[in-house]
C-alpha cells in the first residue's frame, strides 16, 4: 500500500548550474561556480509530500488524477513523495494524515472530500505543516490549509453540446451516483450544454444513489437505451457498469475524471481529465516561499486544471468536433459560461 519513490531532479541541478554559469560569466572561475551551484541544487532538501487517498492509485478516476499529476510535476522538480492509498475509512485516513504530519512532511495532501474534518482538526495542531484537501472550497480559515476543487460543469457543458449534435433520437442519457459534488456539477453542465445546442433535446438523468453499485449503473444505462437515448455519459467510479452497456450497444460515451478510453476504445468520444499539475506547481512554490496555504484553488479549462482528451479511435464527425472545440474555447476565454453557480 505504500509506495516510496524519490524523484531525483538532475535536470534542475543542471539548469541551476547553467544559470550560475551565465550570471557569473564575468568571473574566471565559472567551472567552480557551476559545480558548487549544482551541488547546492542537489543538496537542497526536496519537498516532502505525502498523499492520503481513498481508492487505488491506479483507479482510472479520482485518485489516479492526483498521482499522475504528482508524477508529472516530479519530472520537473525534486520531490520526495509518499502515498497511502485505498484508505476509504476516514478514521484510518486521519491516522495516516497525523502520522505524516508528525514525521515532518512539508505537505500532506488529503485527497478526498470526506477527509475535511480530519484535516481541520490535525492542521490546527501542526501549524508548521502545510495541508491541502479536496475536492472542497473550505480552508477552515487556517493559514496552513489549502483546498482544491474543480469546475467539472465546464467539460460537462462542452460534452453536452457535442452529445446533442451527435444524437439522432433527440434523447440523451446520464448516469450519476449521488446528487452532490463534482458529479452533480458535471451532470448539470452536461444538461445545460445539451439544451444550449438543441433546446428540444431530452436529457434524462438517473442518480443511482450509489458510488459502488455497478449493476445498478448498468441497468440505468439499459433503461436509458430503452427510452431511446443514443448518447450516454456518467460520473464516478460505478459508471464502469454503464460503459459496458454502452460498448455492447455501440452507443457513444463521454467520460469524466480521467481518460476512460480504455473502458470502450470504440465508443468513448472524449474524456474530461482532472489535471492537478497547475495547482500543485502553485502550491509547491508558495510553500517553498514560506506561505503554507489559505488559498482555494479551482481547476478550470482556463487555468489548465481541466483538459479534454479526445479518443482518436472514435470517428467523431468534424462538424461535431468543431462545435465542441468552439464551446471549449469559449469556456476557456470566458465568452461562454455554463450558467451554473
Amino acid at each position, binding site marked *: 500500500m505504500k509506495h516510496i519513490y524519490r524523484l531525483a531532479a538532475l535536470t534542475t541541478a543542471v539548469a541551476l548550474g547553467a544559470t550560475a554559469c551565465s550570471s557569473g560569466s564575468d568571473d574566471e572561475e565559472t567551472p567552480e561556480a557551476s559545480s558548487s551551484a549544482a551541488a547546492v541544487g542537489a543538496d537542497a532538501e526536496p519537498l516532502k509530500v505525502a498523499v492520503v487517498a481513498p*481508492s*487505488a*492509485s*491506479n*483507479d*482510472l478516476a479520482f485518485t*489516479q488524477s492526483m498521482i499522475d499529476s504528482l508524477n508529472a510535476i516530479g519530472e520537473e522538480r525534486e520531490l520526495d513523495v509518499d502515498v497511502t*492509498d*485505498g484508505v*476509504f475509512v476516514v478514521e484510518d485516513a486521519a491516522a495516516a494524515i497525523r502520522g505524516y504530519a508528525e514525521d515532518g512532511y512539508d505537505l500532506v495532501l488529503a485527497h478526498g472530500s470526506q477527509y475535511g474534518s480530519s484535516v481541520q482538526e490535525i492542521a490546527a495542531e501542526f501549524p508548521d505543516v502545510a495541508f491541502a484537501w479536496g475536492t472542497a472550497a473550505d480552508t477552515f480559515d487556517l493559514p496552513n490549509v489549502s483546498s482544491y476543487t474543480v469546475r467539472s460543469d465546464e467539460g460537462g457543458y462542452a460534452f453536452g453540446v457535442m452529445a446533442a449534435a451527435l444524437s439522432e433520437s433527440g434523447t440523451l*442519457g446520464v448516469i450519476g451516483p449521488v*446528487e452532490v459534488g463534482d458529479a452533480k456539477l458535471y451532470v448539470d453542465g452536461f444538461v445545460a450544454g445539451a439544451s444550449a445546442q438543441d433546446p428540444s433535446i431530452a436529457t*434524462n*438523468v*438517473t*442518480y*443511482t*444513489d*450509489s458510488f*459502488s*453499485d*455497478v*449493476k*445498478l449503473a*448498468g*441497468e*440505468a444505462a*439499459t*433503461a*436509458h437505451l*430503452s*427510452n431511446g437515448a443514443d448518447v450516454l455519459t456518467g460520473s464516478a*467510479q*460505478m459508471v*464502469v*457498469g454503464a*460503459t*459496458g452497456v454502452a*460498448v*455492447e450497444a455501440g452507443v457513444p460515451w463521454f467520460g469524466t475524471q480521467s481518460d476512460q478510453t*480504455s*473502458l*470502450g476504445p470504440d465508443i468513448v468520444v472524449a474524456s474530461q481529465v482532472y489535471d492537478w499539475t497547475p495547482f500543485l506547481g502553485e502550491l509547491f512554490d508558495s510553500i517553498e516561499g514560506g506561505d503554507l496555504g489559505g488559498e482555494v484553488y479551482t481547476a478550470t479549462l482556463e487555468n489548465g486544471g481541466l483538459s479534454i482528451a479526445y479518443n482518436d479511435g472514435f470517428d467523431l464527425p468534424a462538424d461535431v468536433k468543431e462545435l465542441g472545440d468552439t464551446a471549449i474555447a469559449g469556456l476557456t476565454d470566458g465568452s461562454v459560461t455554463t450558467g451554473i453557480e
Partner: protein
Amino acid sequence: MDDLFSTSIIVATLAAGIRFAAPFLLAALGETLGQRSGVLNLGVEGVMLIGAFTAYYATLQTGQIGTGIAAALAAGLVMGGLYAFITLVMQAEQGISGIGIYLFGLGFTDLLFQKLVGTPLPIQGLPSAPIPFLSDIPILGEVFFNHTVLVYVAFLLVPVVWFVINKTTFGLNIRAVGETPEAADTLGISVNRTRLVTILISNALAALAGAAIALEAGIFQQNITAGQGFIAVALVYFGAWKAVGVMSGALLFGVVSAVVLQLKTVGIVTGAASSLLAMAPALLTIVVLVTVSRRARAPSALSQPFSRAA
C-alpha cells in the same frame, strides 16, 4: 405510437426486473437450503464478493467465461469449507461468524483487486442467450426468454430446490436436522454431514450469484454486490423458507427496483423524491417480512450448533 412506446418501456422494465431478481434468487435459494438444515449464514454478501472477483479475474486472465464461472464455484466451495469448519467443527456462533465472513470477503476482494488488477479492465460480459422460438413470442419472449445463461439457471433452480427439499431422502434429512437434530441423530442421520453438504451448496450458489453480477457487468469494483447478499438472506425469511416463496420475493424486489429505476430515468420523480423512492424495495421487504413472519415459522434448530454431547 405512444402505446407502442409505452409497451416497449414496460417490456424493458419487466425484463430488467427479472435480471435484478436473478442474483438474489441464486443466493437466496442456497441460503434456503442452509437454513432448512439449521445453518444461518449471514456471510452471503462476502461470499458473493469473492465469487464476483474470482469470476472476473479468471475470465480476465483466460478470456473464457466458463472458466470464470467454474472458478467462482470453486471459490464458493472453499468458502463453504471454511464456514463449515467455523460452525460445525469449532461450533462458533453463526450470526457473528457470518458477519466475519462478510467483512473478510469485502476486504479481501478489495485488496486482491487493487493488487492484481488496479485499473478497472473490462472483460467480455456474459452474452444474452435468447431461447429459440420462445424468444420470438411478442412481449413474453423479450421479458422471459432473452437473458443470460445464469438468469435461466437461477429460475430453473427453483423447482430443483423445491424437489430436493420436499421429494428426496436428502431433503427429508435436511428438514429433520433443521427441526429436531437430536431425533435425526438417533435415527442415524449424520447431522453435521448433512449440514456440511448444504453449507457447500449454499456457498457455491452465493459465489455464483456474485459471478452473475460481475459477468453481466463485465467488470469488478470494490463492493460490487452493494448489499445484495443481505437482501438475499432477508428474502429467505420473506419466502418463508420455501423455494417458490423465495422466488416471489426476489421477483417482487427485482421488479420494484426496475420500476423505481425507470421512473427516475424518464424523469417522473427527481431530486429528493428520487432518493426516497430508491428505498422503496427495502421498505417493501420490511413490510412483507413483518407480515410474513407472523405466519411462517423458522426451522426450530436454526443457528444452533449440534453436538451429540449436548
